[in-house]
């Protein structure tokens, strides 16, 4: 099952920006309520751990469904699994909005490219990367990381997660 605890020591260092958390926290309480610094820090750590916890659970769901990439359906299943099914209705609407927005952005970009004419192949690498960014299924893949194979203490799980290396 999900092992948020085993990753806890390192991921606690990956806090969200203070300004973002503060805004989020303040929007959850009435205006006249203040938050103690230690309380904010606690919530901040909780947020980071939650990301890890939900992602790990969604990953389990993905594996159970026979695929390696975490898909939206896996996240929804994971939310049910951790007892947060109440979030589902709201998040489905958000996902629709997100998809519509992504589609709009893509169409705008295509229109902009058509207006300025085609870039010479190979010349505008940045444009190509920007286009990749707008692909709806931009994937976050482990291989993109700077991974030194010898660095981490390997486990069997690591080996199965890695793609075969191409020299």
């Amino acid at each position, binding site marked *: 099952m999900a*092992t*948020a605890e085993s*990753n806890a020591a*390192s991921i*606690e260092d*990956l806090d*969200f*920006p203070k300004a*973002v958390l503060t805004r*989020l*926290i303040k929007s*959850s*309480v009435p205006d*006249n309520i*203040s*938050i*103690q610094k*230690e*309380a904010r*820090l*606690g*919530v901040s*750590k*909780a*947020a*980071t751990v*939650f*990301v*890890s916890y*939900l*992602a*790990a659970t969604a*990953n389990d769901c993905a594996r159970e469904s026979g695929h390696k*990439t*975490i*898909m*939206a359906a896996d*996240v929804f299943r994971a939310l049910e699994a*951790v*007892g*947060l099914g109440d*979030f589902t209705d709201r998040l489905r*609407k958000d996902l*629709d*909005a*997100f998809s519509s*927005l*992504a589609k*709009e952005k893509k169409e705008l970009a295509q229109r902009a490219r058509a207006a300025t004419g085609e870039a010479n192949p190979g010349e505008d690498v940045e444009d190509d990367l920007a286009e990749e960014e707008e692909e*709806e*299924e*931009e*994937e*976050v*893949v*482990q291989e993109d990381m700077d991974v030194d194979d010898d660095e*981490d203490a390997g486990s069997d*799980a*690591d080996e199965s*997660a890695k793609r075969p290396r191409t020299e």
Partner: protein
Amino acid sequence: MVASESAGAVASSMLPAARVRRIIKEDKDIYACGSESLFLISRATECFVESLVRESYEFSRLDKRKTVQYKDVAKAAQSIEQYDFLADIIPPSVAIRKPAVDS
């Protein structure tokens, strides 16, 4: 002014995607995560924070305080079953007891 936001739906998360991605990548068991999933996890985290803070606030209200303190968050983490995973992250503060005998 995006039409898709008119129904109260939120089309983008206020949590920086790069940070969420980084946290997810820390987990070596995770092979890949689609952009939709990344968005959903971000939004779910916002909902979670909102929920945790609201619960914490309830405890400060019980104490008739206008400041949400750490102990309120710790109580909220303890009192809600779905928050069991937070047990080690937001432990209840342990009071240091003074020795009864003067040295």
